[in-house]
């Protein structure tokens, strides 16, 4: 049985439907991420799991038992808030002791647990400080310690790294993964940052406009986006209008205006309209490419390019009005020079680099 079972949850605010019939089940010990742009409903969903909001329809079950009617303080679920929500009038130790006090634990036991918890997050010498005397990273660790100190069944994290700078964020990402493995508590993580989601999660639910667009492992979501929204939201992607010309079981021929026939993976009824999704880093580019190796091979000219340091992004015009983005690492050996705008080039990609998305 899944740890948390969400069935057809609906939450409306007036005319606006924030969560529109979402279902998912989360297994014990998972690092699960809700990913989506702001306003997609991920935070509303999280608040309903925490108990600060109630669905108008649907069920939320923890260990098979109804959760909707349970008050937030009675749920074995804790939250790490985006602002950390550390009580400013309490010391770090008092903050961490708070959930233990609420459970009516004895003073000595609380003292011991707080001490151990402070050591776990390497803040043993900061127990007497107030939150506003700590750095951003330290506050983040206190918030985690406070939420984990009485071992909840489920930990909810609402964009907990958003307030940190880039360097610290990367470091905290690694700490979070390690922490989750150590404590073995199920994490539900909300973020709008796709790289963070890909790096941290066991599974990701990509949300948009109150619905789950795709729920899968990070690599599946990246490599085989289910629809245009997911392809566009995760990483960068060439999205080209296409029509199915012929199809086998896992290989198909697409007809693309200006390009002609293009091979892609998947299957579909001939005549179906859709979109070819193609990641720029899977497109090879060069002045001359050997034609045998890859199924899709086209000639074009460099329309524009962006030098980004580690890589260069080329926008290649393969036909009137049809552009394909290709990505070339600048460390690629033996390349005499950066291609310039107007240079004739060849591009190619394997059939399984491209995914056909049905409309």
């Amino acid at each position, binding site marked *: 049985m899944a740890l948390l079972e969400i069935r057809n949850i609906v939450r409306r605010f007036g005319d606006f439907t924030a969560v529109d019939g979402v279902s998912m089940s989360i297994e014990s010990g998972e690092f699960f991420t809700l990913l989506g742009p702001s306003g997609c409903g991920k935070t509303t969903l999280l608040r309903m799991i925490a108990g600060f909001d109630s669905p108008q329809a649907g069920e939320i079950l923890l260990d098979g038992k109804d959760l909707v009617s349970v008050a*937030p303080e009675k749920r074995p679920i804790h939250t790490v*808030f985006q602002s950390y929500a550390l009580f*400013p009038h309490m010391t770090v130790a008092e903050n961490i002791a708070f959930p233990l006090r*609420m459970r009516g634990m004895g003073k000595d036991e609380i003292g011991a647990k707080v001490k151990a918890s402070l050591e776990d997050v390497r803040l043993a010498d900061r127990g007497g400080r107030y939150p506003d005397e700590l750095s951003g990273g330290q506050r983040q660790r206190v918030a985690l310690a406070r939420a984990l100190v009485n071992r909840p069944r489920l930990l909810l994290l609402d964009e907990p790294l958003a307030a940190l700078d880039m360097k610290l964020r990367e470091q905290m990402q690694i700490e979070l993964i390690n922490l989750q493995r150590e404590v073995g508590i199920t994490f539900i993580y909300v973020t709008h940052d796709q790289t963070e989601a890909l790096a941290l999660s066991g599974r990701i639910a990509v949300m948009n406009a109150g619905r789950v667009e795709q729920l899968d492992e990070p690599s599946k979501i990246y490599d085989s986006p289910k629809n245009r929204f997911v392809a566009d939201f995760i990483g960068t992607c060439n999205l080209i209008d296409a029509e199915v010309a012929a199809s086998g079981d896992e290989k198909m021929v697409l007809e693309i205006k200006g390009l002609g026939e293009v091979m892609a993976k998947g299957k579909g009824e001939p005549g179906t309209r859709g979109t070819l999704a193609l990641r720029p880093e899977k497109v090879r580019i060069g002045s001359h490419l050997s034609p045998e190796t890859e199924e899709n091979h086209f000639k074009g000219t460099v329309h524009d390019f962006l030098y980004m340091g580690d890589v260069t992004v080329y926008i290649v015009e393969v036909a009137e009005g049809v552009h394909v983005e290709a990505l070339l690492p600048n460390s690629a050996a033996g390349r005499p020079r950066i291609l310039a705008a107007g240079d004739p080039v060849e591009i190619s990609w394997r059939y399984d680099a491209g995914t056909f998305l049905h409309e």
Partner: protein
Amino acid sequence: MSRKILAASGIAVYVFLYLPLLIVVAYSFNNSKLNAEWVGFTWHWYKVLLEDDAMLKAAGNSLFIALTASAVSTILGTMAGYALYRYKLKLLPVLVMAPLAIPEILVGVSLLIFYVSINLTLGLGSIILSHIAFCVGFVAIVVRSRLSGMDESLPEAARDLGATPWVAFRLVTLPLIMPGIIAGALLAFTLSIDDFVITFFTAGVGASTLPLQIYSMIKIAVTPEVNAISTLLMLVTLFIIVVASRISPDSIRGK
């Protein structure tokens, strides 16, 4: 506009704001019955003040009214401020703001008609009830602004970590808004002790307060005793303002 002209006109306006009050303070130490030329320094007018039974009684009344009215309006105003912050209400926001926006004289006369209609004898009681009515709004605004400055997720975090709504309010929300509540109470106290217009209409013949006493002295015969009581009253207000601004720097702008 050039910087110098700006600074000069700014300073001129400050002089305009302070000079009249400084004159009152200066004349309270002037050894003359007239508020005209400077004769010499004296404590005489303060001694006169201390022997003026009517003035002392009025001061006692003012203090009693201000303490009672500020205590009650702090409780009601805190409730109102919390309700305004926490719930979407239609009537309460209007009722909290309206007495502050309407000319005081209208509040005063309508309360006068009201008390007479319900046969309430005018006096200390009617003054206190009236003061509470206009202080509630000020306290509510101060408390509400303190609440909206608070991170909304703090009480939620308390609930999340196992606190019931009441415990979350007592252990988290209340301590955090306490400076606002204290500032609101001080604000209510000063407003009450300073109020003239509404008191004027709701006092009746029996009870007098400091502002009423000052008014009748100004109207009948101006003596430098007025300067002395004015100076003392300004000192009291100044003291409260300094305390309030230490506790909650935003609160003094509420008036």
